[in-house]
């Protein structure tokens, strides 16, 4: 059982951490994309959307190079922490953040686009600073977007395989996440363990998505 739980817990940990980081960093990016008239906007949107299109192996390959001990980020990290980023949990978190970025940014940007300027302008004329109006008006009114962003980032990170394989390998307790473990079990013809993990994942994913759609329906009713 421990060999089942270990990878599952590691996956949950990775997904939770990635989601928190993505919502925190993705929110200002999505807000900027929604409000800006900059000529850079289409280019930045394209970069954000790249992980949807690229095979995870391509993402993983470049991340391996950049995060590796001779890559730009990897080298700096070795200097700062004395440890390599590749084949480490930290490296996986960074890679996941790139990999799941569009799943956080796009729902948020759609929510901010749909919000428009009206309510925020009204809040500004009532004495709220930009930051105040953002947190007290824009964020609560975009709650369905935040929910979607959270769930999709989480679920997408949970299902990550190719990128993990490229930059993380298969180190128990460090980078052996559930998708890798399942692959491993199938490779070694241990179908029973593969079944066990897969069914847990299927049920879990269904439960998460179902509760998201239920909650979204309630949120939308509240703000209509």
């Amino acid at each position, binding site marked *: 059982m421990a060999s089942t739980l270990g990878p599952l817990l590691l996956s949950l940990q990775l997904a939770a951490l990635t989601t928190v980081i993505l919502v925190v960093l993705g929110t200002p990016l999505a807000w900027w994309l929604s409000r800006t008239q900059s000529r850079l906007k289409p280019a930045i949107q394209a970069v954000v959307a790249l992980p949807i299109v690229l095979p995870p192996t391509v993402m993983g390959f470049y991340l391996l190079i950049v995060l590796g001990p001779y890559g730009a980020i990897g080298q700096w990290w070795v200097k700062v922490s004395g440890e390599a980023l590749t084949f480490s949990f930290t490296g996986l978190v960074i890679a996941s953040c790139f990999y799941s970025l569009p799943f956080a940014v796009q729902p948020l940007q759609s929510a901010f686009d749909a919000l428009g300027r009206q*309510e925020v302008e009204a809040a500004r*004329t009532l004495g709220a600073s930009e930051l105040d109006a953002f947190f007290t008006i824009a964020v609560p009114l975009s709650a369905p977007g935040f929910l979607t962003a959270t769930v999709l980032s989480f679920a997408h990170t949970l299902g990550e395989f190719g990128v993990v394989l490229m930059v993380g390998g298969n180190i128990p307790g460090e980078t052996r996440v559930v998708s890798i473990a399942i692959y491993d079990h199938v490779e070694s013809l241990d179908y029973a363990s593969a079944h066990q993990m897969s069914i847990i994942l299927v049920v879990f994913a269904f439960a998460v998505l179902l509760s998201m759609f239920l909650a979204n329906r309630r949120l939308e009713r509240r703000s209509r």
Partner: protein
Amino acid sequence: MSRHISVRYRLQRSDFSLDVDADIPMRGITGVFGESGAGKTALLRCIAGLERDASGRLAVADEVWQDDRVSRPVHDREIGYVFQEPRLFAHLSVRQNIEYGQRRGRREDVGFDEAVELLGLRDLLDRRVDTLSGGEAQRVAIARALLRSPRVVLMDEPIAALDRVRRDEILPFLDRLHSALSIPVIYVSHSIEEVIRLCDYLLVMERGRIVAAGEIQEVLLRADLPLLGGEEAGAIINAEAIDRDVGDGLTKIGFDGIEMWVPGTYETGAPLRLRIRANDVSLSRENPGASTVLNVLPASIESIRDDGESCALVQLAIGSGHVLSRITRRSRALLDLKPGDRVLAQIKSVAVKNAPAAGR
């Protein structure tokens, strides 16, 4: 100390330019009147600081809010903005909406209970905003703007999006604000009826420029302006109800010792605003004798100007008030009317528009 809101703005857009310079009184309601696209909303947005690329100067009484060097951000301008749509916050209750600005205000000129009472919101406080009717939602928006304790209230066609019934439902609340509060209001509208009912002062805008400004009685005499001429040409007079005949459904009103009968019965002593259209006033040299016209008043001609192909507009002084009369140029020649002449004005119809605010 300046008693004005001094506004000077320039704003250049690809399809539109705004160039205004006006002093707006720090009391009463100042109407900004013009057709859509004349720049009325742009002017309000400049004052609120919502147009970032507008350059100019804005001073409210003695406080400079914007000039070449400083520009207060939107939240530091003490304005109460009522938009055309209510723009209520859907995730907050009516009460929380109203308190939003109050919590962020520095002063408390208008109390919560006062605003709730003025706008009749007592029974709505715990409602969700999506259950409100259009008129109710706009009343909440007005209360919310007032509780921010603004130096000046900006209203951008607050009732234009409502149907007639809702509009008539909300107008009495605006009248109440007018008489109960001393905060100046800048009221944008394209409806001459609304402006006549509510405003003390008037700015008339055309294509981004101000073409007339002053007390509403004076400005309405500018029948040379397309917006104020034609069928709409007319004057308003402020008077007081002095007697009434309930049987005939008439009220006797007086101003400067002059008396008239107007339709409707009003409380004696009530201040009334009368609208007299130029087309409803005819002139004679002598008393016409028995006539169906109830009101025949002595007047003196102040000026005469041509109006269209065949008509002339005569501006009359009746007491301290002014009235316009549209006559044909042939009649002018027949009666040999000249400025300074004394005539009798027969007023065929008078509309009572509103009780102007007391105590100003």
